[in-house]
């Protein structure tokens, strides 16, 4: 198959949400010894853009976005070992996500996590009710670029502030960008916490983090 045709096919498989086909085509890239970075850019990249367009025109809804994201991840899992072996970075950066200690509102955080990975970020999801110490320790251990924490309760929002403060105390504030989310979070609160930004919804969250990490992620894409 010629390359152009191949990129089109893998992109279509993702856009049409055909998981088996997308994974199979990714495997073919490995057996066919293709340039995996090119596959990611021209295959996955095109697919993600197309899905984005279909979302904007109102044809695709959240389930298509989420399933599309999951399929990109599965196909990426096939390519990742090759990429690592070549010492290349495949992502826009690595983002740790969690809901803050005391808070179990997981739905928004889950959507943000899936959207980020669909859009080419590596995501470390620590789940819900996560203490500040654990967030920082994991951020250091996993060498992430950014931390995104969600809080929906007034009683748990102080944890977002405590996170930034603890990062300052530990001398790691400059190592990671910090983004906040959740229904009660707003720009004023982000400023108060000394964090780097917030987004009202998952689409804006991806834009925000993409913009903020552009050119600065350790993986450096």
């Amino acid at each position, binding site marked *: 198959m010629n390359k152009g045709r191949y990129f089109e096919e893998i992109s279509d498989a993702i856009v049409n949400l055909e998981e088996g086909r997308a994974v199979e085509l990714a495997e073919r890239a490995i057996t066919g010894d293709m340039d995996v970075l090119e596959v990611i850019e021209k295959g996955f990249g095109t697919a993600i853009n197309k899905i984005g367009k279909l979302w904007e025109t109102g044809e695709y809804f959240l389930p298509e976005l989420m399933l599309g994201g999951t399929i990109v991840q599965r196909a990426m899992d096939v390519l990742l070992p090759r990429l690592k072996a070549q010492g290349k970075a495949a992502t826009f950066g690595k983002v740790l996500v969690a809901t803050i200690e*005391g808070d179990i509102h997981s739905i928004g955080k889950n959507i943000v996590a899936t959207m980020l990975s669909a859009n080419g970020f590596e995501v470390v999801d620590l789940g819900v009710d996560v203490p500040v110490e654990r967030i920082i320790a994991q951020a250091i251990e996993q060498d992430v670029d950014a931390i995104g924490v969600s809080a929906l309760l007034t009683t748990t929002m102080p944890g977002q502030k405590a996170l930034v403060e603890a990062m300052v105390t530990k001398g790691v504030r400059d190592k990671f960008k910090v983004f906040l989310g959740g*229904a009660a979070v707003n720009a004023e609160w982000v400023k108060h916490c000394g964090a780097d930004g917030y987004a009202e919804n998952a689409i804006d969250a991806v834009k925000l983090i993409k913009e903020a990490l552009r050119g600065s992620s350790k993986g450096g894409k």
Partner: protein
Amino acid sequence: MGNDARKSSVARPRYRLLDDGQIERIHATTLKILEETGVRVADPEGIRVLEEAGCAVEKEDIVRIPRGVVEACIESAPSRIDIYDRKGEPAMVLEGRNSYFGLGTDLPTTVDLETGEARRSVLQDVVNAARVADFCPNIDFIASFALPGDVPTNTMYVECFKAEVENSTKPIFFTAAGKDDLEYIARMARAVAGGMEALRQKPFLIHYSEPVAPLTHSKGAVDKLLFCAENGIPICYIPTVLLGASGPVTLAGGITQANAEALSGIVMHQLKKGGAPIVSGWAVVPLDMKSMTYCYGSPEVRLTNAAFADIYHHYEIPCWGIVGTDSHVLDQQAAMEHAFAELLAAMDGANLIHDVGYLGQGLLGSPASIVMCDEIVSYIRRFMKGFEISEETLALDLIDKNSPLKAPQANFLAERHTLKHFRTEIWRPAVCNRDMPDAWRKKGGKTYGQRVVEKAREILKHHSPASLDPGVVKVLAAIVGEARTGLEGKKFNA
């Protein structure tokens, strides 16, 4: 034809969604989930009571509940809960198809009555909501409504409770961050009722706590559930399933999963203390697949609400109801969604219908919205009352007397029969317009939205709720003081 002239009956609006077979099927599937899939219980005491009753525990916190245990607990849960007001007078009988309407809790933003702007909620908003609701005849119970941002975070629920009990005599539906602040609130309630036993006998409060979909009882939720069981504080333990996000997108799947969450809560509660008062039900709500929001104002909520009402009537366990709107202002959408919601919740026969007055997807409050919903409920109560069919109301003699044959100038308006019945037969609104165009214009030509704002202002200016005994007020202040030190720096369990 049944034509007994002496017989009298009432025509009442009735609505049932599920037939017996459908209830049985959902129930059987729920039991299968509880018995085979199991639920997660993140609290050692919760696990202990379940294990003691013969439930199997796997991987530390996954519990499988045999059907016999579930059925015994449905049986032991009371089918009637009597709720009193602050003064110890009967206020609500949560039973059968009795419907009561009241506020919801925790709205972080409030539409300011003076400026019309949305701003951060403060403690005064809790006071205002309590006072407005105290005045409104169709609001049966109150709640914090606002979530105050101007008091220490860890004591906000304690401060809310004090503000509510001091500004209304109506029963209080309340949240707590955890068992720790709940203890302070229980102490306040005892001080108001005149002791532990008096409060048990005549509870004027209902706690509101929620497990976490899918199939998880968090430590914080179970703590509060069991505390209420032990202390005889009625609790409303309600799972929320977001269709397609924290449960299946299909309504049948969503409600069955939610029922497993609700029933496993009832089981823990009843095992802790058989016969302790619990109100159940669930919120099974769509996640809008574009805006990614929780849709209070959707038709699906009305269907899932109807389903649990049918199922809990079958279980003979009192059930709650949820209303609300997705509009961020008090506008036509808010009115439409609230009117449908309150009406259908009443038709469902839900007992404790909460979130009356809620705006903005559960994030926004407005005292004017309480006034609007008071009128909506007033309308609904008239509707639900139906009408009597009897010799007197069929009024055959009257029709005959005013017939063309006997009275060329029929004048029903001057009849005693009309005088006798019009006040009870014909509803009159308090705020809705019924004026002719000129009269309406003369009064300023105001919209409904403007009039409910004005009425809310009037209420706040003129209505003074029955005051609380000054001795009790002092005790409450002292408890809040203690809570401020006792809860400082406290982290609540999720």
